[in-house]
C-alpha cells in the first residue's frame, strides 16, 4: 500500500511535468492542476496508510557513495505526509483558477509539481541521504517558485536572495549535524540513528547544528528573516504551500531530533527549544499585529505558530526528561495538533489573501475595505480562517491551544524549580500571543472586509472563480469541521507519535486522561444554539414590527461629510500597540507638517510616515552582511591581475598541504 502510494506520486509527477510542458497556455492550468492535486491526494493517502499501521518501503536503486536510499514512512512521517498532501491538493485546486501571467508558465507548473512531491518525500525518508536529497530538491524548487513574478516587482529578487541564502545555510547546518550523527552511529539509516549511543560532545554539537538547521527552515527567530520577505512575494498558492506545509517540515525535523535521535538527558536542550519557541511566538505575533501588508501579517503569524509548536515540543522534551511522561505526551500531542490546526487555517487565510489580491490588485490593508458585500464567500471563509488563527472556540485552533495550555498548567506539579519557573512563563507567553493574535486577526478581517472601500481597487472587487472558491470552502470546512470533532484528530495524533495519554471520548470530544481533562466543543455549540434561540426569536419578532430603516449619512458624532478615507486603517488600528511595544519594534516615524503661507497657526498639510522593519534584520543581519562586504572588498586586493601572483597562491597552497601532510 505504501509502496504503491509512493510510486503513484512519482508517476503523477511525471505526468504533471509532461502535461505542463506539452499543453498550450489556455488548457495548461485546467489539465495540470488536477494532476498536481492528485499528487497531493496520493501523498495524503499514503500518509493515512502509514498512520493505520501499514508497513512498506521503496528502495531506490541509486549508487551514491553515501548510502542506500530508502523511503519508509513511520506513523509520524505519515501524519506529516497527510497534512502536506491535504494542503497541497487544496492549493493545487486553487491554482487552477488563480494562475495568470508568469505563474501560469511551464516552469512554474513543473516547479509546483516537483515541490509538492519533494515535500511529501521528506517525511517518507528513512535515511539521511534520501532526506537531504528530498530537502534540497524542495529548497531549489521553492526558490524557483518564489522568483516567479520577478519581472513585476524588484522586491521579488531581493526576497529570493534572502530566501536562497537562508535555505542554503539551513542545509549546511543539517549536513554537518547529520554527518556527525552518521559517523558516530556508523550508518545513515534512521533506524540505526534511533538506536545508537552518543558521546556527549558530538551529541551536543550535532544537536545544536540540527536544531538550528531545522529552525532556519521553520522560521524561528533569529533565523526567520526570510519568511516575511519570501512569503509575500511568492504567488498566493505558493505562499500557502510554503507557509502551511513547507515550514512544517522544519518542525518535523525538530521532532525527529529531539524525540527520536537525540533524546535529551540534559535539560538545556529542551530549555533551548522552549526558549526559541517562546521568543518566536511573541516576536512573530507582535510584528504581525503591526503589519499592514496582509501577506506579511500572515507570514509573521506563521512565525508565531511555529514558535508555539517549538514551545510545545520543548515542554514535552523537558517534561519527559523529568519523568512526567503523562503530561509530556499531552504536550507532544499539542505540538502535532498545532501543526494540523495551522495547516488548516493558514491555507485558508493565504488563499483568501490571494483572492483579495487578484480581485483588488492590492496587498495593503490600508487600501482595502468593504469587500464583505462584494466578495461574500471569500469574506466568510477568510473569517473562519481568522477565527481559527485567533484560537476562538469551535475551531481546531482553539482545541490545539487548549491541549497546549492543559499540558503546561499540569506540567509543573512535580516539585521541580525549573519547571515551576518555565511553565508559568510559558503560560503567560502563550496567553499574550493568543491575545495579540486575536487583535491581529480582528484587524485583518475587519479592515479588509467591513466598512467602506478605501481605494479604487477595493471598490471594483469581484468574487473569485469557481476553483478558488472550492479551495477556500475546503479550507474553511477543515477549520470548523476538525474543531467540532476533535476526538478524531486526537486519535490520529496519538497514533502518530505513539502517545498513551491522549484520546477521544463521547461524541468525538478530546480526552486527556493523564491530566483528567476533557473538551467537547460540540456540546458547547449545542449550548450556544439553545441559548441563541430565544434571542434570535425576539430579534426576528422585533424586526417585523420595527424594520431597519436606511439613512443617507452615518451619525459620526455629527460630522456631516465622512469620507471613506476618514475610516481607521490597519496602521492606525495597530498604532496603540506599536507605541506600547516600541522598544521591541523600533518603528521609524516621520511627521512632516506644512504650514499655510499666510499664518503659521494654520496647517495646510500633514504627512505621517511610519516604517516598521524587522529588528533582527537591522540589528543582527545587516551588520553581519556589512562586515562580510568589507572583508570581501579587502580581499579584492588579492586579485591584482598578475598571473604570477595567482600561480604563487596555488604554489603556497601546495606547500602548505605538503607540510601538513608530512607532519
Amino acid at each position: 500500500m505504501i509502496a504503491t502510494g509512493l510510486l503513484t506520486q512519482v508517476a503523477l509527477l511525471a505526468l504533471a511535468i509532461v502535461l505542463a510542458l506539452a499543453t498550450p497556455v489556455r488548457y495548461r492550468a485546467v489539465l495540470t492542476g488536477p494532476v498536481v492535486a492528485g499528487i497531493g491526494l496520493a501523498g495524503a493517502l499514503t500518509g493515512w496508510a502509514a498512520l493505520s499501521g501499514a508497513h512498506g518501503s521503496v528502495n531506490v536503486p541509486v549508487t551514491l557513495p553515501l548510502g542506500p536510499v530508502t523511503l519508509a514512512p513511520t506513523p509520524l512521517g505519515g501524519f506529516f505526509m497527510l497534512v502536506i498532501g491535504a494542503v497541497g491538493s487544496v492549493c493545487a485546486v486553487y491554482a487552477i483558477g488563480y494562475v495568470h501571467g508568469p505563474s501560469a508558465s511551464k516552469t512554474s507548473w513543473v516547479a509546483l509539481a516537483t515541490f509538492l512531491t519533494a515535500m511529501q518525500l521528506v517525511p517518507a525518508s528513512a535515511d539521511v541521504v534520501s532526506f537531504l536529497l528530498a530537502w534540497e530538491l524542495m529548497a531549489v524548487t521553492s526558490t524557483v517558485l518564489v522568483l516567479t513574478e520577478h519581472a513585476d516587482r524588484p522586491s521579488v529578487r531581493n526576497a529570493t536572495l534572502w530566501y536562497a541564502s537562508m535555505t542554503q545555510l539551513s542545509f549546511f547546518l543539517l549536513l554537518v549535524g547529520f554527518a556527525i550523527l552518521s559517523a558516530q552511529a556508523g550508518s545513515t539509516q534512521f533506524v540505526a540513528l534511533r538506536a545508537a549511543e552518543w558521546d556527549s560532545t558530538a551529541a551536543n554539537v550535532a544537536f545544536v547544528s540540527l536544531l538550528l538547521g531545522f529552525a532556519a527552515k521553520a522560521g524561528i527567530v533569529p533565523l526567520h528573516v526570510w519568511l516575511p520577505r519570501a512569503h509575500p512575494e511568492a504567488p498566493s498558492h505558493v505562499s500557502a504551500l510554503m507557509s502551511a506545509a513547507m515550514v512544517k517540515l522544519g518542525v518535523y525535523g525538530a521532532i525527529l531530533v529531539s524525540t527520536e535521535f537525540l533524546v535529551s538527558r540534559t535539560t538545556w536542550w529542551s530549555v533551548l527549544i522552549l526558549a526559541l519557541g517562546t521568543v518566536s511566538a511573541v516576536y512573530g505575533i507582535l510584528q504581525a499585529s503591526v503589519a499592514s501588508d496582509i501577506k506579511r501579517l500572515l507570514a509573521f503569524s506563521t512565525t508565531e505558530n511555529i514558535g508555539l509548536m517549538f514551545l510545545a515540543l520543548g515542554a514535552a522534551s523537558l517534561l519527559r526528561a523529568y519523568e512526567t511522561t503523562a503530561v509530556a505526551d499531552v504536550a507532544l500531542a499539542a505540538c502535532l495538533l498545532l501543526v494540523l490546526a495551522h495547516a488548516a487555517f493558514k491555507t485558508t487565510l493565504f488563499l483568501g489573501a490571494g483572492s483579495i489580491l487578484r480581485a483588488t490588485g492590492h496587498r495593503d490593508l490600508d487600501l482595502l475595505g468593504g469587500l464583505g458585500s462584494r466578495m461574500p464567500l471569500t469574506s466568510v471563509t477568510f473569517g473562519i480562517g481568522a477565527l481559527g488563527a485567533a484560537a476562538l472556540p469551535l475551531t481546531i485552533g482553539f482545541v490545539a491551544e487548549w491541549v497546549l495550555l492543559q499540558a503546561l498548567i499540569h506540567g509543573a506539579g512535580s516539585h521541580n524549580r525549573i519547571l515551576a519557573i518555565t511553565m508559568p512563563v510559558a503560560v503567560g507567553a502563550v496567553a499574550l500571543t493568543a491575545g495579540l493574535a486575536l487583535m491581529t486577526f480582528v484587524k485583518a478581517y475587519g479592515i479588509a472586509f467591513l466598512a467602506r472601500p478605501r481605494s479604487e481597487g477595493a471598490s471594483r472587487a469581484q468574487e473569485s472563480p469557481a476553483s478558488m472558491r472550492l479551495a477556500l470552502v475546503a479550507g474553511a470546512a477543515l477549520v470548523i469541521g476538525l474543531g467540532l470533532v476533535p476526538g478524531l484528530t486526537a486519535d490520529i495524533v496519538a497514533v502518530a507519535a505513539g502517545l498513551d495519554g491522549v484520546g477521544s471520548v463521547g461524541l468525538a470530544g478530546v480526552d486527556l486522561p493523564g491530566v483528567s481533562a476533557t473538551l467537547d466543543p460540540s456540546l458547547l455549540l449545542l449550548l450556544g444554539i439553545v441559548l441563541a434561540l430565544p434571542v434570535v426569536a425576539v430579534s426576528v419578532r422585533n424586526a417585523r414590527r420595527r424594520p431597519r430603516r436606511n439613512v443617507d449619512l452615518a451619525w459620526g458624532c455629527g460630522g456631516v461629510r465622512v469620507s471613506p478615507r476618514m475610516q481607521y486603517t490597519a496602521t492606525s488600528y495597530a498604532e496603540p500597540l506599536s507605541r506600547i511595544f516600541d522598544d521591541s519594534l523600533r518603528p521609524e516615524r516621520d511627521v512632516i507638517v506644512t504650514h499655510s503661507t499666510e499664518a503659521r497657526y494654520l496647517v495646510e498639510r500633514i504627512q505621517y510616515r511610519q516604517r516598521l522593519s524587522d529588528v533582527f534584520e537591522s540589528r543582527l543581519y545587516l551588520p553581519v552582511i556589512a562586515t562580510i562586504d568589507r572583508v570581501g572588498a579587502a580581499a579584492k586586493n588579492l586579485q591584482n591581475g598578475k598571473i604570477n601572483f595567482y600561480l604563487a597562491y596555488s604554489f603556497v597552497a601546495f606547500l602548505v598541504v605538503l607540510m601538513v601532510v608530512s607532519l
Partner: protein
Amino acid sequence: MNGGASVLALIQVLAMAVLTPLLVGLMRQVRARLEGRAGAGVLQPWRDLRKLFAKEPLRAPGISWVQAVGPVVLVVSSLVLCSLIPLVGTVAFPGLPDDLFVVVGVLLIGTVALALVGLDAGSAFGGMGSSRHMTIAALVEPTVLVSIYALSVPIGSSALSRIVDARIQAPASVAAPVSLLAMVSLAIAVIAETSRMPVDNPSTHLELTMVHEAMVLESSGRDLGWLELGSWLRLGALLGLIGTLTVPFGMAVEVAPVPVLVGMLTLAIRLAVLGAVLATVEVFLAKLRLFRVPELLAGSFVLALLAVTASYLTVTV
C-alpha cells in the same frame, strides 16, 4: 446528574438576565447619590432597554450584516458565560466544559463581536474604540489566564466548578496569600475587560476618551439594546465570578429547591455588594490615560505570576 446540571444552568441564565440590569441600575444609583444627584432609579436600565427595542434601527450606507449579527453574538456569548461560570451552584455537566480556557474563549468571542461592530460602523470613532478595546483585551488575557491558573494549582484542575468546590470545603484557603494575590490581579483584569474606571469611563460623553461607547456609537434600536444587555451580562458574570471566588459560601452543591434559592439569594447579595463597592471606587478615581493602562495591566500580570510561583513553592515545601 445531567438533568440537574441543565436545570441549574437555566436558572443561572434566567437569574442573571433579570439581575444584571438591576445591578447596573444600582451602580448608577450609588454613583449618583455619592455625586449629590437624585439618580434615575434602580429600574432605569430596564426602561432603557424597553425604549431601545421600541425604536427602529438605522442602517447607513456601507454597513453590513455585522451590525445586526454582532450584537446577537455578544448577547449569546454572555449568556453562555452565565451558564458556564458557577454563580448559583457548582454542579457542572460531566461533558460540558466549564474549563477556565473555554470560559475565556467564550468571553473573547463576545469581545471580537463588539470590536467588529465598531469597525463596521465605518467612522473614525468606531475604529478608534475598536482598536483600543482590542489592545486592552490583548494585554488583559495573560493576566486573566495566569491568575486563575494560580488558583487552579492547589486543585490540579482548571475546571471552575471544582476550584469553587475546593474553596467551599476549605474556607481558610480563601484568605491564603496566593489566593489574595490572584484575586487582586483578577479584579484589575475584570475592570479592564468590562470597561470600567479607571480603564474606561462608561458615562463619558467625550468621544476621544471613549473605548466601549465609541464602538456602539453607530448602533441604534434593537442592535444597541442587545449590545447594552450583552455588556451588562458580561459585567455581571465577571463580578459574579469574583464574588464566587472570594466568598463561596451559600452556593448550591446539589440541585434541590432550598439550596438553589439560597444560592440565588447569595448571588444577588454578592452582586449588590460588589457593584456598590465598584461604583464607590469609581467616584473617587480618575480615568487613566490610555498609555498608562498597559502599566496597570503589566503590574497585575506580575502579581498573577507571583501568585503562581508562590503556589508552586507552597506545594513543594
